[in-house]
């Protein structure tokens, strides 16, 4: 076995250019797969962070009558929110809880108008949400309004401009109030930037003529322990609807699943290309080594031993190409990990189906490395199977006759 491996190793070094080309096809494919998997993982990581930090927290507590089809309907108010919040905060793993009032409104600059989600935020909002860290100009002042950078740009607004916010209050009548833009937010979540405005919670409640909130958002010590903590949260909030961030971002998680499937298809395509290349290389190798195959059979190599020689060649090409691919993939991915990719510069404010904006960095995914190497090696062995079988059937005398 060792001897056959040694022979196979010497054989793959024989046609250097052909071997290098086969290695390159394989390693480039492996590298691209690794890059894609790591980039997607990076996108997912940032997306999850942005969803949690700007939209969902780890859990949202809502009224039992909450209507998912009308999420900003004022009928969805949560009663006794203060007591509920206190109960939830007593749980050891809960790091913060923030009350918010969300309602649909029309933003008007006297020339244009745009539908927005208006959010009333309390003083504890920064225990759960990261909004405050992304204020690039001014701040949320009493009687003032924070708005997303993209929305402000679209409507030609800036800090210290006055706008009208029109909405339906609790009793159903339309209310229109004049507000001063006191701050601009440039968050990493496009929804915040494009379609949300923020005001103080008490002012929002006053305008809506209510003392209630639409939801309490809870942050725990670990976002991945959603299932583990949920029963305890539910116990602390009886008769309240508890939604985890996973449940609230089902559309986005479905897209993550789709992306993984796409990655699988991509891997398959790469491997088909690599397999075709390797089959070609191995068939050329069989043809070139016909006389040697005959000689080896004459010397006493069994059909299986000669066949194994070609399978080992395939294995070595796959392993070496795969390893080279890992190195190349690491180099490619290093750029996207350290420098990143400016999504906004590439796509503008376009909705790409993921809550990401600005520079997004890739991640390191060990799973992709293992999968790519296994696939490359396995595909090479599979690709070598047909040429190896062909060798098994060849008669020693027929092979020798080609040169005599």
């Amino acid at each position: 076995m060792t001897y056959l491996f040694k022979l196979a190793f010497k054989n793959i070094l024989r046609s250097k250019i052909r071997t290098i080309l086969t290695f390159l096809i394989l390693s480039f494919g492996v590298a691209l797969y690794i890059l894609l998997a790591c980039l997607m993982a990076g996108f997912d990581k940032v997306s999850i962070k942005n969803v949690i930090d700007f939209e969902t927290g780890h859990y949202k507590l809502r009224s039992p009558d909450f209507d998912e089809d009308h999420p900003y309907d004022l009928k969805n108010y949560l009663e006794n929110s203060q007591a509920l919040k206190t109960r939830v905060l007593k749980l050891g793993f809960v790091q913060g809880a923030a009350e918010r009032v969300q309602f649909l409104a029309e933003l008007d600059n006297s020339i244009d108008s745009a539908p927005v989600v208006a959010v009333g935020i309390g003083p504890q909002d920064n225990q759960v949400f990261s909004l405050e860290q992304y204020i690039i100009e001014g701040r949320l002042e009493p009687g003032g309004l924070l708005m997303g950078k993209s929305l402000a740009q679209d409507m030609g607004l800036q800090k210290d401009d006055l706008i009208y916010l029109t909405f339906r209050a609790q009793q159903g009548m339309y209310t229109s109030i004049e507000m001063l833009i006191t701050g601009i937010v440039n968050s990493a979540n496009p929804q915040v930037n494009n379609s949300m405005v923020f005001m103080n919670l008490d002012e929002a409640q006053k305008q809506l003529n209510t003392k209630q909130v639409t939801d309490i958002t809870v942050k725990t010590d670990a976002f991945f322990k959603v299932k583990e903590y949920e029963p305890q949260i539910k116990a602390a909030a009886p008769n309240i609807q508890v939604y985890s961030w996973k449940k609230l971002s089902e559309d986005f998680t479905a897209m993550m699943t789709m992306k993984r499937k796409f990655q699988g298809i991509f891997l398959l395509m790469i491997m088909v290309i690599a397999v075709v290349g390797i089959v070609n290389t191995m068939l050329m190798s069989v043809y070139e080594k016909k006389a040697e195959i005959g000689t080896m059979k004459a010397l006493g190599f069994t059909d299986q031993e000669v066949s194994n020689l070609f399978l080992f060649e395939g294995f070595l090409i796959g392993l070496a190409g795969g390893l080279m691919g890992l190195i190349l993939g690491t180099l490619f991915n290093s750029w996207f990990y350290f420098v990143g990719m400016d999504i906004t510069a590439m796509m503008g404010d376009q909705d790409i189906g993921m809550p990401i904006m600005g520079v997004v960095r890739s991640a390191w995914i060990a799973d992709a490395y293992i999968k790519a190497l296994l696939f490359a090696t396995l595909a090479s062995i599979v690709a070598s199977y047909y040429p190896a079988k062909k060798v098994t059937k060849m008669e020693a005398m027929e092979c020798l006759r080609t040169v005599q």
Partner: protein
Amino acid sequence: MLLQVKNLNKTYRSGKVDVKALSNINLNLEPAEFTAIAGPSGSGKTTLLNCIGTIDRAESGEIFLDNVELMGKSRNELAQLRKEYFGFIFQTYNLIPVLTVFENVEMPLKLLRKYSGSEIKDKVLGMLNQVGLAGLENRRPLELSGGQQQRVSIARALVKHPKMVLADEPTANLDSKTGEEIVDLMKSLNEQEGASFLFSTHDQLIMKHAKRLIKIRDGMIES
């Protein structure tokens, strides 16, 4: 008796025509013989050697090697027989170009899987010394002359001490002086090693070195 060939027949199909390559061949060889099969091109010399060496199959007849019948053996059994009993020398040397002289010669020993690394080394170096290639063990075949390559091929055939060495026109690709040297070498190794040599040739100069000459024409033994 080392080898017995009885009523061996072999027909090739060339296009739509059947060509009788061997016709009722009968032949006996004793151990340590040095026998030449002589005949013109297309007379069936190579086919006979290939059938005896089990790398080609005859349609009918019998071949006994050490009283073991070869015709009914499976491909794997024949490979095992070739590994243990036969040494092959080819007209075009058929050395593996990616291997060094040493590695080419050690190949049959590695296949036998019964010698240690140091034993293999001793045997290979000893054999290379016998064929006059001492010091060239790290060269690749393409770095050697035709005569040297054929010496490597002889060393490869003899290193495992086979009972029988089959050489198909071993001097055909060499000049006459080198050809004679190679036959002299084969002859001396035949005496030293005791292996039976059966080689084909159509060269009159080479034939005179044989202790026994079998003439073949149109697939039949003439004498």
